[in-house]
């Protein structure tokens, strides 16, 4: 995230700006899409958030895809937001932000978890793997290759989460049957309902062992 702390807006408290933002949004509706006003309010919000964040941020080190990355985050920042907005690893997607959809699935110490339900500060000293960490150069991970072969996505919104979950499902050894795969992939929702292809891809990838 860009550091906006030099802008004069940093004196705003988050709460007052949110209030102003709300008023601007309502005024915006009344004035039939006053886009400039609304976006100014959004920018002010962002700036205030950045200032707020800077004040209470703590330095942490996250080990992501084998690399130690230093960053400063406010304690309330989720691992998901730290990955996407601070480390620019936008492969991990934000779907529901409440643990229901599975789009933000990452591996932490080899186990799959939802990165929206954990704080970045809680995940220091852990090995984090995101979808960006699966391929070796241009050599796709077998699960990624299988998803392409089986056309296991439409819009792609859930795909990185599906792939991370699939990697874990194969490691966990829950690929004995299509029913078993469906059961153990049940924490990942696909709005396009590409499930038959996803299950086929997982089954196919399970046959290959990564060298």
């Amino acid at each position, binding site marked *: 995230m860009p550091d906006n702390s030099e802008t004069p807006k940093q004196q705003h408290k988050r709460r007052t700006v949110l209030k102003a933002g709300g008023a601007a949004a309502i005024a915006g509706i009344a004035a039939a899409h006053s886009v400039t006003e609304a976006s100014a309010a959004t920018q002010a919000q962002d700036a205030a958030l950045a200032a707020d964040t800077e004040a209470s941020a703590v330095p942490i080190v996250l080990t992501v895809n084998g690399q130690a990355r230093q960053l400063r985050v406010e304690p*309330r920042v989720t691992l998901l937001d730290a990955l996407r907005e601070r480390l620019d690893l936008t492969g991990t997607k934000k779907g529901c932000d409440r*643990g229901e959809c599975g789009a933000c699935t990452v591996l932490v110490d080899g186990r799959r978890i*939802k990165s929206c339900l954990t704080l970045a*500060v809680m995940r220091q000293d852990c090995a984090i793997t995101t979808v960006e960490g699966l391929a070796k150069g241009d050599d796709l991970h077998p699960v990624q290759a299988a998803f392409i072969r089986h056309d296991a996505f439409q819009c792609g919104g859930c795909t990185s989460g599906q792939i991370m*979950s699939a990697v874990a499902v194969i490691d966990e050894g829950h690929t004995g049957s299509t029913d078993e795969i469906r059961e153990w992939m049940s*924490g990942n929702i696909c709005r396009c309902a590409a499930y038959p292809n996803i299950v086929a891809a997982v089954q196919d990838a399970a046959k290959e062992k990564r060298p």
Partner: protein
Amino acid sequence: MDFLIPSTFAEALAIKAERPEVVPIAGGTDVMVELNFDHRRPTALLDLTRIAELTEWAPSENLLRVGAGVPYVRIIDELGDRLPGLAMASRTVGSPQIRNRGTVGGNLGAASPAGDTHPVLLACDAQVEVASVRGTRMIPAAEFYLGVKRNALEPDELIAAVHLAPAAAPQQFSKVGTRNAMVIAVCSFAVALHPEQGRVGAAVGSAAPTPRRALAAEEFLAGELSDAGLWESPKPLLDSVRRRFGELAAEAASPIDDVRGTAAYRRHALAVLARRTLGWAWQDYCGTGETRSQSCA
């Protein structure tokens, strides 16, 4: 917001005594939703995940002591044989990702009426071990749940563990939801046979302000089983007994209409769940458990 990272339980208790308003966080599967949606703005979070002693389980006298921070996945993998009811309920929690992080301690701390493990803890006579700098005390599960998302913890206390007897006889848990994964229970039911005490534990979930025991159903069934001498020479239960047990279990609930279901549906479903789970547990007790998958209650 402060983020406090104690490395021992004693340290965590000292913090909780000094700052009772801190919100403990372990798996985070509940607390994080409240934070992400700004339903809660705690002044400080107390990270319990670095405390090794909370993530251990061990036999303690003739019970099993399960640390509050043991995730569901480990209860399923490591304790499924000794705590079958708790493992069954754990398997219905969220999704594999959630079960890798969520804990029974968190379920108890949140004290949601819909928490999946509560009916099992009630049916199995679990004891909740809570601690503070003042000392440790045991709270029976039946006295732990006080209201919607309210439990018997004092402000300076933390949940250390739950204590349960290894199962001596079959236990069952069942839950109704709109799909198999990622559902909050519409209603749930647990039954545990205790032949050594000549009684049955039964409890309903997500159908009252708190999870609660179905005492009338327990008493009715204990009477029927001992009158007919069924503990000593088990025979299949009469349909009328199973149905009456279901009715009494449903009567223990005081459900409401909400987004997940109506009160009337919950009462109906609870009667069915209680009848079926009892049927399965009793079938296992009679030694014919392997026919369960074909049977239709």
